[in-house]
């Protein structure tokens, strides 16, 4: 029986990969989950069970709460800016311009560079040298006042201050927690967003450009014959067709921002007052610098849960689409 023999061979060929993923992805995730429930707080493993103690202690740690705030701010700004710029550039590139290939390469090349290189260069642009109180670089280029524009070294967090009417209103209707600095926007984080968007917006542009060019010209032509303006055509014909791409891009950018690590390490580490700290950096330092393996594992599991909330529905939706197609 030739066919059955080939069937067996095919399974034998893929078995090592399935096994490797089963052990190194799923097995190690389970193992990390287990570590997050034990005491292990020195270099030597200590498997004394502590229940959810590690989770309780990281949620009691203000640094972790700041990290969550930073991640939310980074994710929203990073996704919004990358999608806007990517879509804008794709539409401009799609307008039969001269030198399309060159513009495309200039927009996409940052994707070929590591986050470390990106971080080293943007740090040099935003905050060169050691004088954190008066950064030159970009301030000098645009003639800005370095004492007021501190970029990466800016410790300010923009939040709703106690003297404002909004503060009074929020407190009177029981939403006072929204006025905490832990809900605000850390200014230094926006510098990290700038570098990340520099690196990833070209990727979004390429996705949208491919999407734009897969839309049949007749569709737009038909709308044009009906007298629709170019903007209306974009709004009502083109943009709806790009929805799957927008969704894919959001998921991919979102999962990158939830685990961003290299870029902040190269640019600013935790930043002033943890303004650029992230869960990934907190996890790494807690675990491998401070030796608090149980707590580090707990941070890792929370990161995984956040990514899974975003990615699992997407994967299921994606597979279902392919099966239907």
């Amino acid at each position, binding site marked *: 029986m030739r066919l059955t023999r080939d069937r067996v061979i095919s399974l034998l060929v893929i078995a090592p990969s399935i096994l490797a993923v089963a052990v190194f*992805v799923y097995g190690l*995730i389970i193992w990390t989950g287990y570590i997050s429930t034990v005491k292990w707080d020195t270099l030597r493993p200590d498997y004394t069970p502590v229940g959810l103690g590690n989770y309780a202690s990281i949620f009691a740690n203000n640094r972790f709460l700041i990290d969550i705030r930073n991640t939310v701010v980074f994710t929203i700004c990073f996704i919004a800016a990358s999608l806007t710029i990517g879509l804008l550039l794709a539409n401009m590139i799609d307008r039969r311009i001269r030198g399309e290939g060159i513009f495309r390469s200039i927009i996409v090349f940052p994707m070929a560079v590591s986050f*470390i290189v990106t971080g080293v*260069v943007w740090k040099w642009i935003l905050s060169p040298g050691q004088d954190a109180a008066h950064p030159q670089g970009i301030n*000098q280029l645009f003639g800005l006042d370095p004492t007021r524009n501190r970029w990466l070294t800016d410790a300010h967090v923009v939040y709703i201050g106690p003297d404002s009417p909004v503060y009074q209103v929020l407190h009177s209707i029981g939403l006072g927690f929204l006025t905490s600095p832990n809900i605000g926007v850390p200014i230094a984080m926006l510098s990290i967003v700038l570098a990340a968007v520099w690196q990833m917006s070209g990727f979004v542009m390429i996705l949208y450009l491919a999407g734009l*060019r897969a839309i049949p010209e007749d569709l737009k032509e038909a709308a044009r014959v009906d007298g629709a303006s170019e903007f209306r055509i974009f709004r009502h014909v083109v943009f709806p067709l790009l929805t799957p791409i927008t969704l894919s891009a959001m998921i991919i950018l979102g999962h990158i921002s939830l685990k961003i690590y290299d870029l902040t390490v190269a640019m600013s580490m935790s930043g002033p007052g943890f303004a650029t700290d992230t869960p*990934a950096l907190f996890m790494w330092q807690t675990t491998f610098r401070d030796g608090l393996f149980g707590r580090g594992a707990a941070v890792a599991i929370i*990161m995984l849960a956040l990514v899974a909330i975003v990615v699992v529905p997407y994967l299921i*939706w994606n*597979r279902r689409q392919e099966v239907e197609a």
Partner: protein
Amino acid sequence: MSSAAVVVTSEEDLARDRIRSDRPGSRGAHSRGLRANISRWVLYLLLFLFAAWYLAPIYILLVTSLKGSSEITLDKMWALPTSFDLGSFAAAWKALSPNFINSLLLAIPAAVISSILGSVNGYVLAKWKFRGSELVFTLILFGMFIPYQAILIPLTQVMSDIGLYGSLQGLILVHVIYGIPITTLIFRNYYAAIPTELLEAAKVDGAGFFRIYRSILLPLSASGFVVVLIWQFNSVWNDFLFAVTLIPNQVNWPVTVALNNLSGSFVATWNVQMAGALIAATPTLLIFIILGRYFIRGLLAGSLKG
């Protein structure tokens, strides 16, 4: 429509449109008039502004690294160098070359092994589907989205247990394993576009599993291999997290870790740090310049799955 078709179509669309735009009588030709002209100018102005933003880091890398150490003052950081001084490159190369070579020894084998694995996996998942193979595929795919922090602690334990902690071989193994999802995905979608009738005909002729792979799939795989090799080389070359966690010894550091260390140090002057960044970025940038369309195809293949 299969997913690979989407990917390939998009790639062809990118190229096709460029040709169409050169043809006289296309839409650009009859949209004359003052308003059209102004909007055209605004379009180019915006494009040039964006281009300046994307190129600014390259500019600052070049001008800083080409300056001699006497010339690198902060108040002149945007100025062109008055004379070319390659001393910073010599110094940066002296500091980084062992790590640069480590990165090559790491990224090349990892990319090659990953591509071979991805190719056979993709072949099985596209053409030898079994009960539950779609579920297995989805479960494998999840592996490329996980934050690696979620496996990092036990991974260091496993690597020490098997004696590979701190070694380049260990890091190659890690990159090969965590590269399985993306390489399998790209090849599976790539092979899905090859007509199954071709394989059926070969089966009737008595060809077996490996024979079909060798004589039908492999000869059609060249561009798939280029895409996956570039993708994996890039991600391994640019990785920082695995390397900084699994390689404690400076001697075995890849170039990303060494560069981060160099840029944080007070010993190296700024021109040397920038020269180092340029050196660390050169291989992947060169690949992008030479094989850009395969690089872009990888970007599309890694995202458009549906």
